[in-house]
């Protein structure tokens, strides 16, 4: 039910979203354009460009203007859905459109792994509190999340790709799901420690709650007490975390796409940074930020569905 109060809350959040968006994109803009190296000279490769050509190119890409003005021009383009043009003359929007599907599928695959494994391990640890299983889950998830992504990725390629041959080593030729399982897992592993700890903690809290005693005093079977009465309450903090984490997962794809050579946005971002493709870098970052901000807004709203106390605001 949309009440005036809910609308007001969403309005407040959207306003905050715009402020954050402007701040973050401006910082990125500044950072990208203060990177060392000259993209225009790089365009020429080994052959030096004449001063007039350089000056013309600078004018064409508005590089001769102050940063503030360039930023405003960029924002103006954004309003028309135009993320700018790369120095190689291709529209950033076009490039992104081709690559989004791969990245989104990868992030969602990783997300599903994180939810299923993280929540599952968390529930298991809570129900077997203090046992070897509980401690094993804690140790394993922490060790795994402490390993850098590129190490984990390479080891996974070596073991499951080269030695065992269960999954393709790299590339997306075999499509979903087979090509996405390994990179998805590598991304998901990082969040497992947090998700399982969070689920375990809130499950334990829920198991000790008064309403659980009420349900038990009425003869509700234990499986139903845990699976229905406790789980709904206990998932609230986990859902919040998982929602915001979807944004991080998209960020996580940047490196993993590089390792597994998947033609997604992350891969494009890496190559663009190397090639000093400022407009592309800013464009991709902007898109990632928008997604990040929108997911956190959606999490807030989903929260209300699970917890009636928040719905009323």
């Amino acid at each position, binding site marked *: 039910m949309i009440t005036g*109060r809910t609308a*007001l809350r969403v309005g407040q959040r959207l306003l905050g979203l715009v402020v954050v968006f402007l701040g973050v994109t401006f910082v990125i803009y500044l950072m990208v354009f203060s990177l060392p190296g000259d993209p225009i000279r790089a365009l020429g490769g080994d052959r030096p460009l004449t001063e007039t050509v350089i000056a013309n190119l600078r004018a064409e890409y508005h590089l001769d203007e102050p940063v503030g003005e360039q930023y405003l021009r960029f924002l103006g383009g954004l309003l028309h859905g135009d993320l700018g043009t790369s120095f190689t003359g291709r529209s950033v929007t076009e490039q992104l459109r081709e690559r989004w599907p791969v990245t989104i599928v990868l992030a969602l695959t990783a997300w599903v792994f994180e939810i299923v494994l993280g929540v599952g391990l968390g529930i298991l640890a809570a129900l077997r509190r203090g046992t070897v299983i509980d401690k094993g889950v804690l140790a394993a998830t922490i060790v795994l999340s402490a390993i850098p992504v590129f190490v984990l990725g390479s080891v996974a390629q070596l073991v499951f790709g080269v030695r065992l041959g269960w999954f393709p080593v790299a590339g997306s030729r075999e499509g979903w799901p087979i090509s996405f399982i390994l990179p998805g897992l590598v991304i998901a592993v990082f969040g497992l420690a947090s998700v399982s700890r969070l689920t375990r903690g809130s499950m334990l809290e829920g198991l000790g*709650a*008064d*309403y659980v*005693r*009420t*349900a*038990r*005093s*009425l*003869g*509700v*079977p*234990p499986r139903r007490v845990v699976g229905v*009465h406790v789980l*709904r*309450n206990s998932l*609230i903090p986990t859902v919040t975390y998982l929602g915001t984490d979807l944004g991080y997962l998209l960020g996580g794809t940047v490196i993993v796409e590089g390792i597994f050579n998947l033609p997604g946005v992350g891969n494009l971002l890496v190559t663009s940074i190397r090639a000093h493709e400022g407009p592309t870098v800013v464009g991709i970052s902007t898109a990632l930020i928008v997604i990040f901000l929108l997911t956190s807004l959606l999490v807030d709203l989903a929260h209300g569905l*699970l*917890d*009636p*106390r928040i719905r*009323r*605001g």
Partner: protein
Amino acid sequence: MTSPAAREQVPLLSVRDLRVVFDVSGRPVTGVDSAGFDVRAGEVLAVVGESGSGKSVTAMSVLGLLPETATVTGSIRFDGVELTGRDDRAMRVVRGRRIAMIFQDPLAALNPTFTIGWQLAEALRATRPGIRGDQIRRASLDLLESVELGDAERRLRHCPHQLSGGQAQRVVIALALAGEPELLIADEPTTALDVTVQAEVLGLLRRLQHERRMTVMIITHDMGVVADIADRVVVMRSGAVVESGDVEQVFARPSAAYTADLLAAVPRLGSRGPAAERDGGRPLVQVEALTVEYGNLLRGTFRAVDGVDLRIDRGEILGLVGESGSGKTSIGRALIGLAPVSGGRVVLDGIDLRSASRSQRAGLRRRIGVVFQNPATSINPRYTVEQTVSEPLAVHRGLRGSELDQRVDRLLAAVGLGPTAGRSWRQRYPHELSGGQRQRVAIARAVALDPDLLIADEPTSALDVSVQAVVLDTFRELQERLGFACLFVSHDLAVVDELCDRVVVLQGGRVVESGERTAVLADPQQDYTRQLIASAPYPDPVIQRSRRAA
């Protein structure tokens, strides 16, 4: 089924040699120590005791709801069948269907994320196997009707946070009734409720017990509740039963010394005669048309205090009485500048708080001591008693060394924590103290600066009656000796009657009635005050019965 007369011969529930031992990180801690008693079919049995007496543990062990760390031995026979040693699956047939339970904190006892309708349906499915959709709905409505919760159709769609405490307890009772149990165990069912609501819930329990020929076992610490509802009483102390018998007999001629002490400790309304006259002079505290509002423009405001006038003379104890939401705590907070005052004046010793300078405010604050309800949270758990009591002296008076030591010693002696043969009180941490001892420390801290005014917000509500009696004595002695004025905030009319000089009765942020203690409590002029007084059960079964009949 046998005839009613024959059924009374055999107890419905029979507890013998019950022993419950908890494993607290490898150390055995005894919760119940060879307790034994009977609950006869159709009666209301009250199990009374103070905290730690094992009364709740006993109740939980009947339904097998204790945590896994508990070991239960002895015998609990229900309707001729042994319940101890049964596994969870076997107990589920008993739970809800033959024995049901209601709990102390009704809002916590309900699942916050499901509607009332869902929770009733869940209880019905668990206790009446095979029940179907439309039957569930009809049965749910019937249950809500039998617990007198109005507007049942709409209530089914509500979630617990939309209910008041009293309404929530009605829902919990409805859940318990779902399986039409023969025995209802009520564990402190009205302790978290206001007195007027408590009276309603007790009335409801009495009616249900009568109509459904249910047997009720009520666990309580409140002698008034016992006198109001029980046929027989079991008194527990430190895990054992010290006395049991008919309620009239136990109240009139207790056989155990502990029962007699417990009854003597209960404050009784009207037991103290009229007080001596005091001379007026300029009042220490003058509150005029005080309004306190919480919230903000965006979310809407809530007016907790609405145009309250009151005064406190020097050396006077003013009782501020009201139920939850009456604004009594907000008034106390307004006096120390901790509440958002949106209108009216607070004048302390001739200084208007609104126009007071920063240094004037600081000076005033030094002259006000505060004692809160829960000493467990109002004392820093990482401070020793000595640190807690000496802090205000060191900060405001700049006392150091032996001077400070002596002052702390005198203060602790004044609240009954003087030198002992064992370990000194000074070096102990809050977790090494009982609730009553902690509250004494809090009082010592509050009077450390020899305040002109002490604000005590429900200082004994979290304590057992026998502890409350001693803390109140300490309080009275200190007040007589130091002569401070006091704003005593309480929901308990009997405590206010014992302690205060004048009384102000609040309801919904407004003053209903105020005046001399004897005038207000013995001869109330307002309906609400009369209702409050009538709702608080009197700790004597004979008197309480005649009050109820009236």
